[in-house]
């Protein structure tokens, strides 16, 4: 499964978001640090879910890291996150 699909699946399962977009932006970083052949290194996540209500910015990001799992988070080079409740 593509990494973007894995991210999508895990976040969908964890937060039942009303909006969720996962974009693989790896190609934008071709030639820069962290780029690797085949891509799947840079992702941008936009997520909106009730589950984030009342959580601080850091807590929201931590919850997302948690849902994705340590292995996935450390295997990709960059993960941009935009969260709303």
């Amino acid at each position, binding site marked *: 499964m593509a990494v973007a699909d894995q991210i999508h699946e895990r976040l969908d399962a964890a937060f039942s978001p009303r909006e969720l977009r996962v974009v693989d932006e790896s190609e934008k970083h071709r030639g820069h640090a962290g780029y690797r052949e085949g891509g799947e290194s840079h992702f941008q996540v936009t997520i909106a879910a009730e589950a984030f209500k009342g959580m601080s*910015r850091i807590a929201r990001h931590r919850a997302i*890291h948690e849902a994705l799992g340590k292995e996935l988070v450390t295997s990709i080079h*960059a993960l941009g996150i935009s969260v709303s409740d």
Partner: protein
Amino acid sequence: MTDARTQIDETVKANDVVLYMKGTKMMPQCGFSSRVAGVLNYMGVDFLDVNVLADDAIRQGIKDYSDWPTIPQLYVKGEFVGGCDIITEMTLSGELDQLLQENGVAYDKDAAEKIREANA
């Protein structure tokens, strides 16, 4: 505590504002580190930059210290504030101004306003 952890703990407590980043504030080596260092520089914040690329133990140690998987990481008065996305959001919302003010850290208010105007 491991050596890296002790070293990090001492650094973030001895300096009001510390940015763990890839590269230095004068020569960042990653777009995300560059963005945060750029904001702090522009806002005239006096901060210590720690280049994690210069020390593998610190590079891993800072992730363990904050339980946060990415770099850059900003610390104010020993407290972890966030990474690139969070600092960007806090800059645009004015929360970063508030945090600096509360902690008695000098910064250029006009410069902060200019960033917000440019990104409105």
